[in-house]
C-alpha cells in the first residue's frame, strides 16, 4: 500500500520523525518498505493568474500570456490549446526544475521573451493513469495567486510504499498504519469515529442474504447527489495512494476504503430497478457484465448482489456496468458489506480480476468496522456531494461480534523468544500496541482489538510483542539439543561419486527436470514409463518430468559445442521421475578429446573412453565385474551400445549417440551413459577388505586365437574364467586383429592370462596344463584355435 505521510499526519504527529527514520523503523519492526519518494519533485511553482492572452506573431499555435504570479507579472509563451484568459494556472518560475531534470529558464520562443512555463499535471510528474488532462492544469478560482502551487494541489507529499503481507490485513488501511507507527514510536493517536446526522428520508431498501458467504451487509440510501470533481486535497490523496480520481462519489468510496480498509460500493439507485437487495451465490454458467465492460461467466463460488431478480454487482470484487454511478446520478445506495475471503479469492483468481476491493476482502476484514465505514462515507458525501442521507441503514449482520482474548504467560513469551523481558517491559509494549489486557501474576489475558482480526493465537501475540521489543535485541544462542550429525552412507556415496568424477575430469551440470513431452523418451532405456506431465505447465518445453538425465546433457553438449567448446565431458546426478517413484540416476556425456593433448597426439574418444569411466567408478566403489551386452535403443548407435549388468540386474547403459540424432543437435561422436545410482550403491562394497600382498610375482601367458568375428571378447573371457581355477588372476584382450593372414569372417584375439597362487610359486607344469585345458575348451565351445 502507498501511504501518504500528509494523510498519516491527520492521525499522528510525525513532526519529530524524518521519513527516513520512519522507513527504517517500519522496515525493521513491521513490514518491508519498498520505496520512499515524494509525490512530485517539482519545486518553485506558484499559482498564477492569466491576465491577458495574445496570439504569437510568428506561430499559430503559441500564445503570449501575461501571467500575474503575485510579486510580478510575467510574460509566458504557452502552446496548450486550453489556455485562456482569467484562468488560475500552475506556473514554473525561471529557475524551477521539473521532474526529469527539465530546467525552466528565461528564453526566447520564436523571437518573443518567455519567463517561465504554465504546467500540465504530466509536467509535474503526475502519471497519466491518474488523470485524463491533455493540456495545462487549470486550478479552481479559489486558488490564491502567488501561493506555492504544489501545496495548493496537495502534492507536497511523501509516499511510503509498503509491501503488505497476508497476515497484516490492517495494513491495507491508513488507520492501520497510524496505529502501527504510533506503537513503533510510542505516539499519541487521533482517529475519530464517524458521526453524521441523517435527514428525514426513509430508506426504501429491504436487504437479505441467501448465502453464508456474505455475513453482513449495510446499505445507506441518499438523494440530492451532485456529481462533480472532488476537492483538490481528496484528489491528491487518492493519487498519492495510486488511485485515479473519478468523481466525488466514487472518490469518497475509495477514500473511505483507504482510510478504514473497508471497501464500499455505490449503486445508482435509479438504475437498480427495485428496492430490494438479495445476496446469493451465482448459478453455474450465469453471465454478468462488470463495470469494466467485460462479460463474465460465473460459477457457484461467486457472490452476486442482486436486485431480487438480476445481478447488480459481483460481490466484493466489482460492480455491474448497468448500475454504475455516472455524471447523471442523483440517488444512490451505498453498500458496506463483508464477504467470505475464500469466495472472493476464488472469484478473483478464476476471473483474473483483482481489484482494491477483492484484495482487501480476500485477506479478511475487521468485521466490526463495516458500519463505521459506511457512516464515514455518508459524512463525506453530505459534505462534498450535497447528499441527503436516510436516517435508517438497511442491514443484516450475522457476525458473532465476540471479543477475542489471548492468554500468554511471561515465561512462555520468554521461553519462545529466548528473551528476558520482565512484567513492566511487557506491559509497556502492550500499552504502546494499545492492546487492552489484564494480568494475573505472570499471565496476561489480552483482548485483541477489532482492528486486528489477524490476532488469534498466543503466537500472534508473541510476534507483536517480539517485533515491538525488536528481535534484533535477542541474544545469539545455539540450540541446547545435543545430537549427532552426519551424512547417511548413501549421501556420502553421492558426494564420493561427484568427487570421483571430478577427479576423472568430468564437470557436473544441473539442468531442468521439466522438458518437452515430445522428447522425454528420446534417450531412455525403459520405454514403458508413463512420463509425469504437468496439468498447468508454463510452456510445452517445460511440461514433462524427465525419465533420464541424458536429455539435459545433450542440450549442454549442443550449447557448448555451438560456442566452440569441443571438449564436453559432463555428468549430472538427477532422477527418473514417475508418479510413484523417483529413482536417482547418474548421466554422463563425453564429446571431443578426453584430456586434450594440444600439440601432442590425442587418444581417441570412443565407446571405450566412457566405458573406462564407468569401470573406474566400479573399481572405486569396489563392485563385482560388470557384463556389457549389446543392445538396440532408439537414437543410439545400433552397434556401439550396451546395457550394463551385474548378476542379471541392469545397472544402466552406455553407448554412442546415433549419428542422425546427433546431427539433429549439431553434434557428432557423442558418447553417453546412464547408471542407476541406487542399484549401483546396492552392489558397492560398504567397507574395505584386506588380502595379504603376495610375496611371489604373478606369471603371465599370452595366447593368440583365431575365431569367428561375431564372437565377443566378453564371451571368450567368460569361457576362460569358466575353465580355470582360482589361480587365474585375470585375463585381458591386448590385441584385436582382422585382415591379412586372417581368413575373412574371422578375427584374431591376443589374450594375456595372469596366474597367481596364494600358497606358493606356481609350477610351470600347472600353468601349462591349465592353458591346455583352456585352449581345448575354447576350441570345443567356440571353434577358436591357436594362431
Amino acid at each position: 500500500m502507498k501511504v501518504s505521510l500528509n494523510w498519516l499526519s491527520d492521525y499522528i504527529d510525525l513532526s519529530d520523525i524524518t521519513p527516513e527514520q520512519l522507513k527504517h523503523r517500519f522496515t525493521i519492526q513491521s513490514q518491508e518498505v519498498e520505496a520512499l519518494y515524494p509525490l512530485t519533485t517539482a519545486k518553485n511553482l506558484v499559482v498564477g493568474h492569466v491576465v491577458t492572452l495574445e496570439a504569437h506573431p510568428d506561430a499559430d499555435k503559441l500564445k503570449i500570456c501575461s501571467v500575474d504570479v503575485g510579486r510580478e507579472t510575467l510574460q509566458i509563451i504557452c502552446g496548450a490549446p486550453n489556455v485562456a484568459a482569467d484562468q488560475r494556472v500552475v506556473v514554473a518560475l525561471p529557475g524551477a526544475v521539473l521532474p526529469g531534470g527539465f530546467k525552466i529558464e528565461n528564453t526566447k520562443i520564436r523571437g518573443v521573451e518567455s519567463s517561465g512555463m504554465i504546467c500540465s499535471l504530466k509536467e509535474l510528474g503526475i502519471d497519466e493513469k491518474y488523470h485524463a488532462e491533455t493540456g495545462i492544469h487549470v486550478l479552481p478560482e479559489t486558488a490564491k495567486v502567488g501561493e506555492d502551487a504544489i501545496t495548493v494541489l496537495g502534492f507536497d507529499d511523501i509516499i511510503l510504499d509498503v509491501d503488505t503481507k497476508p497476515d497484516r490485513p490492517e495494513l491495507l488501511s491508513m488507520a492501520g498504519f497510524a496505529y502501527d507507527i504510533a506503537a513503533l514510536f510510542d505516539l499519541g493517536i487521533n482517529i475519530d469515529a464517524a458521526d453524521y446526522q441523517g435527514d428525514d428520508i426513509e430508506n426504501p431498501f429491504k436487504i437479505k442474504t441467501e448465502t453464508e458467504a456474505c455475513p453482513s451487509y449495510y446499505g445507506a440510501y441518499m438523494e440530492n447527489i451532485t456529481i462533480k470533481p472532488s476537492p483538490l486535497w481528496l484528489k491528491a490523496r487518492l493519487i498519492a495512494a495510486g488511485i485515479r480520481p473519478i468523481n466525488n462519489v466514487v472518490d469518497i468510496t475509495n477514500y473511505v476504503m483507504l482510510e478504514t480498509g473497508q471497501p464500499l460500493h455505490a449503486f445508482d439507485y435509479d438504475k437498480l430497478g427495485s428496492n430490494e437487495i438479495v445476496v446469493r451465490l451465482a448459478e453455474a454458467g450465469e453471465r454478468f457484465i462488470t463495470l469494466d465492460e467485460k462479460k463474465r461467466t460465473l460459477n457457484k463460488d461467486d457472490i452476486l448482489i442482486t436486485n431480487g431478480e438480476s445481478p447488480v454487482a459481483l460481490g466484493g470484487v466489482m460492480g455491474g456496468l448497468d448500475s454504475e454511478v455516472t455524471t447523471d446520478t442523483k440517488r444512490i445506495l451505498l453498500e458496506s458489506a463483508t464477504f467470505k475471503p475464500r469466495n472472493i479469492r476464488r472469484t478473483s483468481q478464476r476471473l483474473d480480476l483483482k481489484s482494491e476491493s477483492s484484495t482487501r476482502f480476500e485477506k479478511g476484514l475487521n468485521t466490526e468496522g463495516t458500519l463505521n465505514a459506511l457512516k464515514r462515507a455518508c459524512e463525506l458525501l453530505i459534505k462534498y456531494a450535497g447528499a441527503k442521507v436516510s436516517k435508517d441503514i438497511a442491514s443484516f449482520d450475522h457476525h458473532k461480534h465476540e471479543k477475542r482474548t489471548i492468554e500468554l504467560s511471561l515465561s512462555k513469551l520468554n521461553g519462545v523468544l529466548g528473551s528476558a523481558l520482565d512484567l513492566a517491559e511487557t506491559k509497556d509494549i502492550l500499552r504502546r500496541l494499545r492492546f487492552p489486557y489484564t494480568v494475573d501474576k505472570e499471565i496476561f489475558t489480552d483482548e485483541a482489538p477489532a482492528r486486528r482480526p489477524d490476532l488469534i493465537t498466543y503466537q500472534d501475540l508473541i510476534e507483536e510483542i517480539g517485533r515491538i521489543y525488536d528481535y534484533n535485541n535477542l541474544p545469539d544462542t545455539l540450540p541446547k539439543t545435543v545430537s549427532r550429525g552426519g551424512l547417511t552412507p548413501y549421501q556420502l556415496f553421492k558426494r564420493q561419486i561427484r568427487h570421483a568424477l571430478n577427479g576423472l575430469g568430468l564437470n557436473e551440470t544441473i539442468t531442468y527436470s521439466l522438458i518437452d513431452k515430445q522428447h522425454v523418451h528420446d534417450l531412455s532405456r525403459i520405454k514403458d514409463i508413463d512420463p509425469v506431465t504437468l496439468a498447468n505447465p508454463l510452456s510445452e518445453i517445460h511440461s514433462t518430468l524427465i525419465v533420464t538425465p541424458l536429455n539435459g546433457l545433450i542440450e549442454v553438449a549442443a550449447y557448448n559445442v555451438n560456442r566452440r567448446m569441443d571438449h564436453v565431458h559432463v555428468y549430472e546426478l538427477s532422477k527418473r521421475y514417475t508418479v510413484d517413484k523417483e529413482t536417482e540416476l547418474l548421466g554422463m556425456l563425453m564429446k571431443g578429446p578426453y584430456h586434450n593433448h594440444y600439440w601432442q597426439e590425442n587418444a581417441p574418444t570412443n565407446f571405450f573412453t566412457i566405458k573406462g569411466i564407468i569401470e573406474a567408478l566400479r573399481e572405486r566403489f569396489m563392485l563385482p565385474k560388470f557384463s556389457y551386452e549389446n543392445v538396440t535403443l532408439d537414437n543410439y548407435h545400433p552397434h556401439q551400445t550396451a546395457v550394463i549388468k551385474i548378476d542379471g540386474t541392469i545397472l544402466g547403459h552406455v553407448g554412442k549417440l546415433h549419428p542422425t540424432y546427433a546431427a539433429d543437435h549439431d553434434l557428432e561422436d557423442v558418447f553417453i551413459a546412464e547408471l542407476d545410482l541406487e542399484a549401483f550403491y546396492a552392489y558397492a562394497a560398504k567397507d574395505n577388505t584386506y588380502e595379504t600382498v603376495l610375496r611371489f610375482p604373478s606369471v603371465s601367458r599370452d595366447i593368440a586365437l583365431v575365431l569367428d568375428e561375431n564372437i565377443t571378447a566378453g564371451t571368450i573371457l567368460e569361457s576362460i574364467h569358466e575353465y580355470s581355477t582360482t589361480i587365474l588372476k585375470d585375463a585381458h584382450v591386448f590385441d584385436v586383429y582382422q585382415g591379412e593372414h586372417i581368413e575373412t569372417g574371422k578375427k584374431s584375439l591376443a589374450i594375456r592370462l595372469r596366474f597367481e597362487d596364494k600358497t606358493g610359486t606356481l609350477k610351470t607344469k600347472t600353468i601349462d596344463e591349465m592353458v591346455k585345458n583352456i585352449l581345448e575348451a575354447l576350441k570345443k565351445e567356440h571353434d577358436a584355435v591357436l594362431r
Partner: protein
Amino acid sequence: MSSLSCEDFFYLLGVIHVNVKEKINTLEKKLKAALASVENQAQLQEIKAEFLGKKAEISQFMKHMKDLPDEERPAFGQMVNEAKKRFSDLIEAQREAIKKAELDALLRKETVDVTLDAPDYTLGSTHILNQIIEEIEDLFIGMGYLIKEGPEIETDELNFEKLNLPKDHPARDMQDSLYIGNETLLRTHTSPVQVRTMLAYGGEKPVKIICPGKVYRRDDDDATHSHQFTQIEGLVVDKDTTMSDMKGTLLAVARHLFGPDREIRFRPDYFPFTEPSVEVDVTCANCDGKGCNICKQTGYIEILGAGMVNDKVLKMSGYDPKIYQGFAFGIGVERLAMLKYGIEDIRHFYTNDLRFNKQFKR
C-alpha cells in the same frame, strides 16, 4: 750370463733400463696424441690393440727381463707394469669421455620446449549449487544436524495443508505452483521433507535437520526468476528451542558464508508455517554495511527467511505444541551464490556454459 764380464753386465743393464724407460716415454706421448683425436669406441679399440695388445711394443719389453739379473727383475717388471697401467687408465678415461659425449649428444636430441602446453588433465568440478549445498551441509553437520531428502513430486497435503496453507489460503498466491493432478504437484519448497521427518519421528524425539533439494514454482524464467531452483531448509524442534537459538544459528550461517565480520538483522515477515516469522538480512560484504549499489544503499542484503514453527504445523506433524517448539528457516541457494559471487543472471546455473561451471572449483 757367464759370457759377460761384470762391467759388461752393468753396461747392458744401464742400456736396457735407459732404453726401455725412454721408449715408454715416447710411447706414452704417442698414445696421448692418438687418444686426443679419437672420436668413437672403435677407434679406441684399435688404439688399445696398438698400445696394449700382444704385439704392442710395451709387451715386447718383458722379453728383456730374462737378460736382467735376478735382483733387477722386480724393479724392471714394476716399471713396465706401471706403464701398462697408465696406458690403460688413459684409454679408459678416454672411453668414459667418449661415452659421456655420445650420451650428451643423444640427450641433446631429446631437448623439449619446456614452454609448450601440457595435456589438459584439469579436474572437473562440482556444480556451484551443489558446492554451496555441501558447504552448508558440512556447517550444520558440525552442529549436529542430519541431512534429509525427499521426493519432488509431492502431495498438496504435505506441501501445503500440513504447513498451515489450506486450500484458498491467501499465501498460496505467493507461490504459484506447478500441478500434476488435483492433489499432486512439484514441491514449491523443501518444507514437506520437514513434515515427513516429523511424522516419521512420531512426535517423540527432538528434530535437528536440514533439507536441501530442487523446488519448483510457476514462474517465467528471467534474470531473477527460475521455475526450478534450489532450497535448503532447516528445522529444529525440541522442548526448549528459542528464537534466540535461531538467531545464533543463522548468525553462524551468515558468518560461515560471508565472512567472520558479518552481522545479521531480523525483520518481521510472514510465512504461514512460522510465527513469528522474519526475513534475515546480512550486512553487505561489499560496503561493510555503509551502503552501496549492491545492497541498494541499505547496507544490508536479504539472505533467508525464518521463524518459530507455527503450532498448527507442529500439531499436524504429530508434535504436541504444549511440549515442543522450534524454528525453521529456508535459504535460496541460487540467491546465495548470486550474492556471494556477483552472478547476474539466475539462468546461468541451468545453462551449464562450461566457461561458467568451470570457474567454481571449491
